[in-house]
């Protein structure tokens, strides 16, 4: 059990309120004791060691920390960990299987959708939420859905292409199935 901000302090303060929460992260239930003020981003990155979720601005502005909570994209730096209690959280680590990349990841590889890669996990999860609602988006719809995710490298062009590539591949897979 980890109680995060207690680690940050020299010693856990007496009488600090701690909550036991269970969050389903990428398909597995994880039970952790947290202080109510712990942010979901810190739960993932520090307590659960899932560092694929990036912390960019830490001020709710960049979207790098985006994860899916019950299927919808949220900025994990702007959600309390306790609010994820009993919910499903999906991070970039949940996309690929042991042997196969997710089509969205493949798309980013095929279309060169990243340079430094810092924004990529957030981009992919926003893209996943979009494609679940709208399997055949237009370029404008992709740009709109990703407009809360900032990228300082690519100029967005290839990110949009990557998502359109993934959309096509996912539609083809669905037809075969």
């Amino acid at each position, binding site marked *: 059990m980890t109680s995060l901000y207690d680690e940050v302090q020299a010693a856990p303060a007496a009488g600090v309120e701690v909550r036991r929460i269970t969050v389903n992260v990428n398909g597995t239930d994880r039970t952790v004791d947290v202080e*109510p*003020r712990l942010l979901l981003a810190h739960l993932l990155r520090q307590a659960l060691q899932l560092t694929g979720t990036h912390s960019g601005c*830490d001020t709710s502005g960049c*979207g790098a920390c*985006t994860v899916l909570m019950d299927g919808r994209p949220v*900025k994990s730096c*702007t959600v309390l960990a*306790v609010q994820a209690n009993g919910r499903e959280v999906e991070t970039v680590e949940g996309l690929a299987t042991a042997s196969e990349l997710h089509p969205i990841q493949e798309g980013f590889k095929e279309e060169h959708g990243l340079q430094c890669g810092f924004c990529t996990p957030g981009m992919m999860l926003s893209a996943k939420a979009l494609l679940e609602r709208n399997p055949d988006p237009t370029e404008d719809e992709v740009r709109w859905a990703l407009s809360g995710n900032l990228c300082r490298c690519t100029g967005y062009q290839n990110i949009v292409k990557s998502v359109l590539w993934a959309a096509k591949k996912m539609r083809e897979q669905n037809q075969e199935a």
Partner: protein
Amino acid sequence: MYPSRFSYDAPTSVEEVIAILDQNGGEAKVLAGGQSLIPMLKLRFASPARVVDINGIPGLEYHRVDPDGTLRIGALCRHEDLEFSKILGNFPTLSQASSLVADPIVRTRGTFVGSLCHADPQGDWSATMIALGGKIIAQGPNGRREIKARDFVLGPFVNALAFNEVAVEAIVPPAKGKALGGYLKLERRVGDFATASVAVALDVDGDIVTRAGCALAGVGGRTIDANDAISVLVGKSLNSESIKEAAEAVAAAAEPRTDHRGSSSYKRHIVETFVTRILSNIANSEQKAA
């Protein structure tokens, strides 16, 4: 960055929320979408002793139109519920604003009612509600009361709720006649707050304006209530003369200040341009429809 310590409650009824607020005498804060409160906690602009999370209260996610045309928006209706709504046809001011509030990720969490409570002078929804003549339903230990949107926003980040009241619903009355309107916002990039924005809502009978509402965001120390200014339209039809008169009156009601988003005169000019544009668009599309 992390907030200072607070106690956390996640009650499952409005009555419990009110009881907790009441017992804590102003030291407790309601947490709705958290898209303004959590950033404030992190920056330690707010450090309440208790945070009362209302997300676990069932039955507050709705927005619906009553048979008489009244729109009701529950306290947990998210920005994106309105963006993707299919029932806002009679509320063009709201539907046009819905995709301009913050960015798509913030819109999955942030709530309409929370945004009104936050009373940000740059908030989009407060401007639409003042223009539409909307109301907020507050519930406290002594029951419910209605507060007009124009009386709800008292100042920057100050609303009319008592410490032991929670806003449970927002209400937009039905138009008398045909509802027309629009929302235009100038932002530096997606997700930015308004440099200047204009909400207009008109009730029209034939081609005569019977009620005119207008409010502005980003151009004053609080949401600017420009209802009196735009009332010059009442009893008239929309033509280049009446549009010019209204745009000038509304621009005069703005109280913009020079800052990193632009100079005061620039922002006033934007307001005048946006009022003209919204009203001209309405006039043009009505002409086409006729």
